[in-house]
């Protein structure tokens, strides 16, 4: 079980967190001011003999990411990149990483990769599955997202669900790089609320019962070990219900406070 405890291998400025035996979180931080921050992270899957990166992160963190991915892969770099969507903080390092590690495979869910600036990408289909570097990956229709071509990415082997812009958190300065198992007092409702209010603007129109029903159904149908957000602190399975309760509270508050 120790491999699933979310071990912080380097506390401080460069936290790298092992979520499972072969999935790690490379947490990058962006300060928002006022003691609040947002993660702009990537995740690394060490498959049999290949390395898969989930999203490429922001160019803002490029040097740090190159250094840390190199270190995490013992200099091998990456063999495949699976993109949740083409928003710049998720896709901003593709050309730089390719210059460094060669023309690795890119998997993207866009209906038309050229329009998203990814003419060389292998297309994934939302609702479909692909084998990527020997791993079975499912591409799920995301209830919490903004861009049309966003997909949530489920790695069957590790049971980690990578949720792109969903499940974010405006963490405090002392919560950088901490998973739900390491947050001293767990998640705070306020920071779940502010993240979703400021990121998924359409939630002001949401029917909370419908949205939360779909989300809970997704998790009931799928065995998830970790929920891995790009902009939040990873959520271990045993903390998911708590997060969902706070999320529902947040969505209801957004709807209530933004009267039309």
């Amino acid at each position, binding site marked *: 079980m120790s491999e699933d405890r979310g071990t912080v291998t380097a506390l401080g400025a460069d936290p790298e967190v092992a979520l499972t035996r072969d999935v790690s979180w490379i947490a990058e931080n962006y300060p928002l001011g006022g003691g609040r921050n947002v993660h702009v992270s990537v995740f690394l899957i060490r498959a049999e003999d290949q390395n898969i990166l989930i999203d490429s992160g922001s160019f803002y963190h490029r040097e740090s990411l190159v250094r840390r991915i190199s270190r995490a892969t013992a200099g091998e770099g990456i063999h495949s990149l699976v993109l949740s969507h083409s928003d710049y903080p998720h896709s901003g390092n593709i050309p730089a990483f390719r210059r460094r590690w060669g023309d690795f495979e890119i998997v993207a869910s866009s*209906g038309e990769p050229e*329009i998203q600036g990814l003419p060389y990408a292998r297309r994934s289909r*939302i609702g479909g599955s692909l084998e990527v570097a020997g791993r079975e990956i499912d591409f799920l229709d995301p209830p919490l997202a903004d861009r049309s071509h966003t997909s949530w990415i489920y790695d069957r082997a590790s049971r980690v669900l990578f949720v792109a812009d969903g499940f974010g958190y405006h963490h405090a300065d002392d919560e950088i790089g901490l998973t739900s198992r390491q947050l001293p007092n767990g998640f705070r409702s306020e920071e779940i609320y502010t993240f979703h209010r400021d990121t998924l603007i359409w939630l002001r129109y949401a029917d909370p019962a419908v949205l939360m029903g779909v989300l809970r159904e997704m998790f009931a149908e799928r065995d998830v070990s970790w929920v891995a957000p790009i902009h939040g602190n990873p959520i271990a399975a045993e903390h998911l219900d708590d997060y969902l309760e706070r999320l529902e509270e947040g969505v209801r508050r957004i709807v209530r406070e933004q009267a039309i």
Partner: protein
Amino acid sequence: MPREIHPGIHWIQEFGPDRPGIAKSLVDRGAHWYRPGREIHVPQNAFLFTGERTLLFDTLSPAATDRILADLERVLDGRALDYLALSHPDVPHAGNTFRILERHPGAKLVAPSFGRTHELYHLEDAHKVGPGDSLDLGGKRLHFHDAAFLDAAMSMWMTEETSGMLLPVDWMGLPLMDGEGLLFADEFRSPVDEDRYAEFHGRVMFWMRYVDVARTQKEIDLVLETYRPRMVASAHGPVIRADVPRYFEMMKEVVERVATGGRTGVL
């Protein structure tokens, strides 16, 4: 070739590639306006405003770099581009920003003020605008607004005073068949109706499947009442120049269709 849709306002379009996947789904569900065998395209639009000064609203996608640069030159005809305004920093809308600024180094970059992550989009030095901000081009007066229906959080809508034009960006787009590029909505041979709009919004605004329909429809009424547009220029649809309220009624129907029928696909 750009089309002048109002004196001093030019419509530049990237017609986009053929989308056989969308065509197949239209055939499968028997979409009444689609003629099997016809190509289907989802356009990207940019709009150039030329008063005493000039402003380009959005850049088209990286697949249309040559198009936007050539069309800009054609319309500007030696004049300077004074402003480049981005509705939101999404690839299909902002993907040619650097190339345009390279060609027009004197242009001032204008971006939505919303949010605190401009650095993550190279927009930290842009001139930021939001609700209540205006820009007088001399003969054209632009106003910036919160986007009511959007994808990226860092977004804005724009209106132009002399034309009564609302630019709602990702809202009010629809798929085109071959031959329908740069046509006003009232020039189409096939109907521009709620079914076409639903095909687009069920992909781009897939989140409408999770909304409170009445609440969202109320917002559409509010948008109409607030802006009272005489023209509507979406980034992905035909320009509407007449009978605008009728199209808003269609959009209310679209919300209901997506909420009950679910997502139609992806773009």
